[in-house]
Each structure stands twice: as structure tokens, then as C-alpha cells.
């Protein structure tokens, strides 16, 4: 058996050009396969990480995003008094009412004007999201026309850097700081004082209420308590789940598209592998005859050729995965269908994706190599030895 394995491995690249071309084909297919999955994974992770396990968010019932959710101040006062909410030493609840709006900014990459989230928050907005850190300048002063921008906004849009000015809602806003938020979706947002944003846009309402609940809180009970309150029309969700849901349309779309592309591409690669393996079988008819004459059975020959094909596709798969891993240094930005806002994220590799990719590549090798291997196994010794 070890002999056959080394025979297969050595043969795989006996034809340098042919072997290389086949490997390249499979690598390219696996690369595209990984890239698509990494794209979906990148957005999903970025959004999921935007929410925190400790936080709960309330939006208006049946509003799937903050953008179309409207809650009045009275709603906030009712929810704020719930006993499950963590309180600071002075007794104020760790609770923030926020208003979300979209403003148009010009992207640096193509100068297209796209929608960017503007989040009007309060001092507690920073308390419930400890990941948010000012990395340049300082926080906005409440009650002023000052704003801070996420690092992705500062980097990705014209006129959105530290010290620059943005105009919206009939006001001129000064960018006094840039913040990071551990790579989450907040880095694609502009933050401002809620009351100032509300005044500028004449929106005396909230889009969402976010609060931290004490460890060990029974979430289901809390949800039932607030959702069944006659005075409220709200939906209560763990913050993490809420943000993860925001990626649903996009990831579904990308995954469906990705499957279509992967299948079509793999058909091409399978054909390539088949051609190579049929060629290998045809060229080595005498060798096959010799092996058989030496006493190797048909199944051994079948195995040897399948192993060769699997080896070629496996190498291609690994190269494809390695190339795709490089994509994680690439940052892209697109409009999220669910929120209508632009969000920046990176391609993200995961062990599952790598595993799927390697299975996918071996499958291509198996399918591409099977028929040629069967042909090799069926060669008759006598015919083979007089082949030339």
C-alpha cells in the first residue's frame, strides 16, 4: 500500500504543466468558494459583535430595524424603571435612549454618496458599550454641535476626518473625535448627542432603547413583562441577536449566490480534473499493465488513480484556502439591505469555512477522478502490455 501511495503522489506532478494547470483550476474555484463564504461570515460576525451579551434592546413592535422604529419618551420612562436593569452607584439605570438617522456621505473609493448611520446617544451610550474607545481627539460635549465618528467613517469618506465639518439638519457639526469599537458595526457610524440630533431634525422621539441587565436575569420573564405591558408597543431582544438579524438578508443573498457560483465553477474544475486523469490513464496504460502483472489487483489500481486525483485536488484546495486567507486584509464596504446603511467589514476565515473548502476540493477530485480510475482498473493486462 505505501508503495502505491508514493506511486500516486509522484505521478501527480510527473506532467508539470498539466498538473500545475489542474491544481491552479481547483485552487481558483476553492478561492472563489472561500471568498464568498468569508464575505458572508465577515458581515455576520461584524454585526453579531456589535451587540453585547449583557445588553437588551427595545424597538417598536414589528419594526425590524431601528431606522423605522419610533418610541416616545414615555416609553423610555416606563422601561427605565424595570428592576432588571443594572444601576450605577448613584442609582441611575445603565440605560440609553437613542435616535438613529441616515445621512449621505461621499465614499472615498468611488465618490458615490451612500447612507451612513448617525446615532444620537447619551453619556450612558458609552457605558453600555465599553468597547467604544476614543482614539483621537475627545468625546462630544453634550448640548453642543459636536460629533465623533467611527474609525471606518473617518477613513472611508470625504470630509469626515478629525477637525472637519459635516452639515446636516440645518447645522454645521464639528468632528471632535474618532472612536474605535473593536471592529464592530459602530465603527461605521457617526455619534452625536441625542437631544441635539432630535432638535436639529425635529424628532422628539427615540429609535431604540438599550440597557444592561444584571447577570442572571431571566430574559424571557423580562421580555414577557415589558411586551405585555398595555402602555407599550415594543419588542425586546438581546442586543446581540438584534444585530445578528440585521445581516440576515445580506448573508442569505450572498450564500445563495455563492452556492450557484460554487457549483458552476466546480463543474469546470471537475471537467479539468477528469481530462487530466483520463490523460494520465491513457499515458500510463503500460504501467498499469505492469502493476497488474506484478499482482496488484483492480481495486489497488482504482485506489492508486483516485489517490492521485484526490492529491491533486487537495493541493489545489489548500492553495485556494491559503490565497483566500489573504483576503482578510482587504476591507470592503457595502450597503446592508436590512438597515439601508453602509457598513464596513473584512472577509473573515473560520475553521468551518476551511473545512468546507477542503471537503469541497476533495469532492471535486473524487468526482473528476472516479471515471478515469474506473477505466484504469478495467484495463486488461494483455491489452495493456501490448499497447504500444
Amino acid at each position, binding site marked *: 500500500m505505501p508503495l502505491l501511495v508514493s506511486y500516486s503522489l509522484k505521478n501527480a506532478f510527473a506532467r508539470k504543466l498539466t498538473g500545475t494547470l489542474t491544481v491552479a483550476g481547483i485552487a481558483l474555484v476553492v478561492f472563489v468558494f472561500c471568498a464568498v463564504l468569508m464575505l458572508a461570515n465577515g458581515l455576520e460576525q461584524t454585526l453579531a459583535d456589535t451587540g453585547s451579551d449583557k445588553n437588551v434592546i427595545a424597538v417598536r413592535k414589528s419594526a425590524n430595524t431601528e431606522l423605522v422604529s419610533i418610541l416616545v419618551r414615555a416609553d423610555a420612562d416606563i422601561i427605565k424603571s424595570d428592576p432588571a436593569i443594572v444601576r450605577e452607584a448613584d442609582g441611575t439605570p445603565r440605560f440609553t435612549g437613542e435616535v438613529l438617522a441616515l445621512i449621505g456621505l461621499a465614499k472615498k473609493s468611488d465618490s458615490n454618496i451612500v447612507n451612513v448611520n448617525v446615532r444620537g446617544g447619551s453619556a450612558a451610550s458609552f457605558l453600555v458599550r465599553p468597547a467604544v474607545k476614543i482614539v483621537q481627539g475627545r468625546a462630544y460635549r453634550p448640548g453642543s454641535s459636536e460629533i465623533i465618528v467611527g474609525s471606518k467613517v473617518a477613513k472611508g469618506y470625504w470630509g469626515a476626518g478629525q477637525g472637519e465639518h459635516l452639515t446636516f*439638519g*440645518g447645522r454645521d457639526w464639528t468632528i471632535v473625535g474618532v472612536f474605535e469599537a473593536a471592529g464592530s458595526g459602530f465603527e461605521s457610524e457617526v455619534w452625536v448627542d441625542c437631544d441635539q440630533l432630535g432638535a436639529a431634525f425635529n424628532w422628539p422621539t427615540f429609535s431604540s432603547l438599550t440597557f444592561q441587565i444584571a447577570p442572571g436575569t431571566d430574559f424571557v420573564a423580562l421580555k414577557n413583562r415589558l411586551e405585555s405591558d398595555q402602555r407599550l408597543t415594543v419588542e425586546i431582544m438581546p442586543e446581540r441577536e438584534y444585530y445578528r438579524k440585521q445581516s440576515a438578508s445580506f448573508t442569505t443573498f450572498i450564500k445563495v449566490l455563492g452556492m450557484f457560483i460554487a457549483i*458552476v465553477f466546480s463543474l469546470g474544475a471537475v471537467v479539468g480534473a477528469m481530462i487530466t486523469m483520463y490523460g494520465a490513464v491513457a499515458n500510463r496504460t503500460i504501467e498499469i499493465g505492469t502493476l497488474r502483472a506484478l499482482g496488484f489487483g483492480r481495486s489497488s489500481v482504482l485506489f492508486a488513480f483516485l489517490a492521485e486525483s484526490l492529491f491533486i485536488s487537495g493541493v489545489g484546495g489548500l492553495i485556494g484556502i491559503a490565497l483566500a486567507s489573504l483576503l482578510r486584509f482587504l476591507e470592503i464596504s457595502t450597503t446592508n439591505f436590512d438597515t439601508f446603511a453602509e457598513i464596513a467589514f473584512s472577509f473573515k476565515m473560520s475553521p468551518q469555512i476551511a473545512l468546507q473548502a477542503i471537503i469541497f476540493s476533495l469532492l471535486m477530485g473524487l468526482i473528476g477522478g472516479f471515471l478515469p480510475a474506473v477505466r484504469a482498473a478495467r484495463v486488461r493486462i494483455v491489452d495493456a502490455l501490448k499497447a504500444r
Partner: protein
Amino acid sequence: MKVFKLITRNTWRHPLRTTLTVLGLAIAVTAFCVIRTTIDAWYSDSRATSPNILITLNRVSLVFTVPMSSIEKVKRVEGVKAVSYAAWFGGTYIDPKNFFAKFIVDHNTYFDLYPQWVVPPDQMEAFKKERNAVIVGRKLADRFGWKLGDVVRIVGDIYPGNWDYVIRGIYTGAKEGSNELNWFARYDYVDERMREIAPSRAGQLGWLIIQIDDPSKAAVMSKEIDNLFVNSSAETKTQTEEAFALSFVEMSGTIISGLRIVSILVIGVILLVLANTMAMTARERIREYAVLKTLGFLPRHLIGLIVGESIMIAGAGGVVGLLLTAFAVIPLLETALSDFLPVVRLTPLTLILGVGSALVVGFLAAVFPTAQAVRTSIVDGLRMLD
């Protein structure tokens, strides 16, 4: 002509290998055409626009509104023929998965500015009589099995509450390939309820639709209209209808560029497959080429033989791919996407590019084997075993 015969014979020396290669090429060309057609479908709404329509929306972004009072100001601008308005309704029909575009429009003027939506006169009359009437596209009605007179409940989000609508009209597109997936309900019905529950939001419009008499003045008039609202609480951005529609397409710009890259990569995959086939072929025939050279064949004859064979295989793959695309895959795609993208149509340009890229692949795949065949000396070629 004899060379042509030789090429044909050569092509069929390995029927299995050739068949597989043609098949691979056909799949790649099909994929290429499908991806391009999908991208085209994305842009279809922006192509169906009219040059003498301008759209005015709030400068900040589309979640902000334009007050009703701006209509009178715009009407006074010289060259404006008519003004209508609309807003995005949002809302959910039973399940978020049943997404479709829901607009609320001015029932008196909207359809006058959009002659591409054809509504039977009696249905239009019914729409104008009843506040909770709605006109839906034919394909949308088919998708959910709605008939005239059906009551459809939408759960609102931007405009909170439950909204019961009666289907009073079904429009069809004036031209083949119009978007028949829209929902047009009456603005006044929604506005009336907003006046009760959220008075600050009453009389607020999503965008104005402005018909102008001379499309060549679109740019000048856009500026003129925006100047009317400078320093007001709702500054505006006026653009042609096409630019408005394109701004939505461009939101998915990154995905579209991604798809374009993928459509090129699929050609790359198949280039590798064909190059492999040609490399194997040329390798097997090195002795033969040496013989041909001895017989007096010049390098250009060999180039013709190999490139000709490669292009013949590629061309066959291209043609099979096109047939597959036009008669099998596109009709399938049309059914699959009909609920989401209004128009799925294969354009001549896509077909030309599909075949064209196959031929380019055919040429490129032959380069390396040709160089090898030409370079190998007669003696080396004849000495070659295997």
C-alpha cells in the same frame, strides 16, 4: 482548405477529451452570461426612467422628508409642467420574507406622470373614490394570488399600526419588461391617520416627482429648485429620475463589482482547463509535428494547426454555452428571480461578450503549446518517446 480538414480531424482524435472540454467551456460561458444578465436586471429600473422627470428629496438622506408646502413653490418654477409626490411605506405583509416595494402616492396626479403603468379607467376611478384603495402590479398580484376586491392587511413600521387595503386596480407595464412588482396605495389615507397619532409627521412627503417640459434643462432646473429651499429646515436634492434610480443600484455597488470579478474568474477557470487540454494534445503530438516539419510545414502552418484546433474547441463550447443560456438557463432564471427582479433579459451584448471571451480563451490556451511545438527542433521531436 486541407488545413481546415486536418484541424477538424485533429480535434476529434480524442472524442472524450474534446467533449469534456467543450462541456466545460459551455458551462463557463453560460455562467458568464447568467451573471451579466443578473447584473443587467439590477439596473433595469434605472433604464426604464424618463428624461423629463426630476425627483426632489431631502438633501440629508431618504429617511428625511419634504414638506407638502414645497409643492406650490416648485410649481411656480418656469418649465415645470406638473408635480406629484410619493413616499416609501415600508411595512410587512404577513412575513418579512414577502418583501415588495410599497409606495404611497398622490392618487390624483401620480399615474399621469408615469404613463408606463397602465390602469384600466374603471379601476382608476375606483382607486380615486376609496381612501384605502390600492393599485398593484400584475406580477405582484400573481405572486400572492390577489384579485380585485381582496382585502390585504399590511403591518406598518414607518407608519405604525395595521393597515387594511382593498385591491381596486391591477396595472400592467406599457412596454414588455416593465416592473410589475410595485404597490401603490393612497397617500391621503396614511396622512389622515398620522394627523391623529403623530401630528408632527403629517404633511410630510418622501419625494416630489416633477415633470419638466424640456429634458435638456434638467440640470439648470434642478439647481433652481434646490435654491428655493436653501437654508430652510428641509434642504433638497433634485436629480433626474435616472440618477435617483441609479443611486439605489449603487448601494449594491460593491456586490456588483464582486459579481463582475467572478464573471471574469469563471473565464479564468476555463482558460486553465482548455490550456490543459491543448498542452496534453501538443505534448502527445511532438513527434508528429517534427514529421510535419520534415515534410516542409513552416512554423506558421503549425501555429495555424494548433491555434485553429484550440479556437475550434473554444468556439464549439461558446456556441453550446449560448444555446444553453438562451433556451434553458435564462427562462429558468426568469422564473426564479421574477419575484425580486422585474426584468430578466439576455442582451445581444452579453451574447457577444460570451462568445468573444470563449474565442479569446481559445487563442490564449494555444499560446504555450504553440511556442513549444515551434521551438522543438526536428531532431528532438523525433527522438521524443511517449
